[in-house]
């Protein structure tokens, strides 16, 4: 490759924890900085550029103004990567979509002052509800090793692939005791792997923060629930934490 690829990072409504995972690559970032030209990354550097080879987008879209900013970035980028669950589906921010109206949401936070125009947001969207996305790196937060892998493959001209098997597969490989056997409901059977089953491996249930596999085996999930005397309602109460609805796309 002659010139180094121009790379930019942008964030919308989110906690910015995913860009922190990039900082957390530590010495690897120092190495990576030699392979690409980071032209825009507001949180760590002052500067901007007219065009990008790869734009990494973090965060969800909740306002018209942000939608315009995103479209503008798209028009100047060869490749758009949605990284982190907020960019992929809207993530945790989608929890506000459970309310009937956005006025009710505003009243919860701002009480009597809810009616100020600055407070207006619409229902949370993932970025592919606004622009075409070329690649996804799911998770809340992203797995930084996966991020590094994706960047390496992109630099080598390959097309990275997301794992499309459930977290249970990775959990079994780690030889963890199944959490259902310890009395805990877990979304591992439906959730998309790629995290190394990090939550069950730390004694906590999977919350499907990477969404579900493309075609989740709902029958198997039903069987597990019946076997352990749980109801579908109990699972439904958990599965929407990260903006996942198994009945719809993604």
């Amino acid at each position, binding site marked *: 490759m002659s010139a180094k690829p121009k790379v930019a990072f942008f964030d919308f409504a989110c906690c910015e924890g995913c860009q922190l995972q990039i900082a957390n690559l530590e010495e690897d970032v120092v190495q990576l900085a030699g392979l690409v030209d980071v032209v825009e990354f507001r949180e760590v550097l002052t500067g901007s550029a007219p065009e990008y080879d790869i734009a990494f987008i973090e965060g969800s879209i909740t306002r018209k103004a942000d939608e315009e900013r995103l479209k503008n970035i798209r028009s100047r980028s060869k490749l758009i990567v949605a990284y982190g669950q907020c960019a992929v589906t809207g993530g945790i921010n989608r929890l506000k979509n459970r309310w009937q109206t956005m006025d009710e949401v505003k009243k*919860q936070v701002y009480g009597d002052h809810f009616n100020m125009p600055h407070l207006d947001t619409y229902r949370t969207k993932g970025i592919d509800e606004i622009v075409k996305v070329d690649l996804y790196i799911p998770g809340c937060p992203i797995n930084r090793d996966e991020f590094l892998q994706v960047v390496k493959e992109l630099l080598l001209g390959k097309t990275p692939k997301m794992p499309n098997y459930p977290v249970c597969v990775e959990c079994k490989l780690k030889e963890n005791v199944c959490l259902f056997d310890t009395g805990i409901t877990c979304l591992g059977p439906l959730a998309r792997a790629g995290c190394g089953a990090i939550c069950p491996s730390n004694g906590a249930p999977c919350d499907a923060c990477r969404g579900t596999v493309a075609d989740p085996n709902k029958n198997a999930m039903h069987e597990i629930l019946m076997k352990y005397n749980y109801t579908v309602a109990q699972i439904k109460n958990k599965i929407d934490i990260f903006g996942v609805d198994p009945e719809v796309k993604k």
Partner: protein
Amino acid sequence: MSKTNDLNIHVHHITRVEGHGNIAVNTKNGKIEQIQWQVPEAPRFFEAMVVGRDYSQLATITSRICGICSIGHTFASLKATEAAMGIKISETTRHLRELLLHGETLQSHVLHVCYLVVPDLLNINSVFPLIETHKDVVLLVTKLHRLANELCDTIGGRTTHPIRTRVGRFSMLPEKKELEALKKRLTEAVDDLKKLADVVKSLAPAIPDFTRETEYLSLTYDKEYAFYDGDCTTTDIDKTIPVKEYQRVVNEFVVPQSTAKYGKFNRGSFMVGALARYNNNYRQLSPLAASVAEMLGLDGVNYNPFMNNIAQVAESVFAVERALYHIDWLLDNDLRLEELEIKPRAGRGVGAVEVPRGVLFHDYEYDDQGKCVKANCVIPTNLNHNNIQLDFEKMVPETMKQGKSEKEIQFHLEMLVRAYDPCISCSTHYLDVEFKK
């Protein structure tokens, strides 16, 4: 026609801060027309998101308020839920939580001072050029940052958005050999931090000489320099105020021109964060942390907001020393995974911790099924908002009088905002502010 000395500063989305903020300053014929610190971050409405959710999910959800202080949010959340349901934690859980919190403080302070502030002191645009020019210093910083993160990984199960931290307990405990490895590295880190302090000392002359006395708000605790526990105190009061009465202290209010929720107590504004903690509790710092502070020009109550960054360096030393203390306790005691039978009950609870950017409050109300009915989170960056504004109002005329150029004044204002280490994504209450043309 505007005169040449008129200021027209308009910084859209200031860089090297967490989240989005704008600066707007206009003067005409030497008269100030507008000085504003504005925050256009998209509000995310966490207090609405958690309504109806089960108590066991609250920390998982509210941890996502902030990537940098997700551990602090987790603890404020768990403490609020535990207070509401009358759950007591064991000594082991408490030591693990404090250890984890010190890991986060170290991680955040090192990141902020070295990656975000140091470029200002060297007048460069980011830390990246330093990879070429000061590689040894950059590697020292990444080593410390990595250690802090790996501490969080080992104790919390993940660097950001911890996994093992559950209501009333930890879902998994570190192994003794992991603790021993951490102990070895943290012991070495004390020397690394001394080296880093020397680097900061060499840059310290670039710290602006600006003071404005304000009210300094933090937790305070009789047993130690407060992070995990304590009551509310300020430099303006004699008697501490219990955390559950936090509303008496933060007094959140809405201002018509910006609609961001501000806070104030005994004066026009107050400051929270490392400098506020230092000003209230500096006598409780360890001798080493206190000597590092002193070496960098911080020797008692200080009214220069830029010294917040120096207090962060001193607190980094303290965090490492305290982390070692907690590791020793954990190594000396028999650690057992705890099982906990939680019977949800209706009630309200408030939890507070000192996170890197200042005191944080979570306040939850639950029904008898353990479903959240109402929530309020008071974020330190919000509490500083008003103080930044008042600093601006003092700094602009002062720097104008000193004959500084528009570019220099803008740089000073940006640098001031960064000194506060604002974490704007955290803020559930920040709103758009219209530009005045």
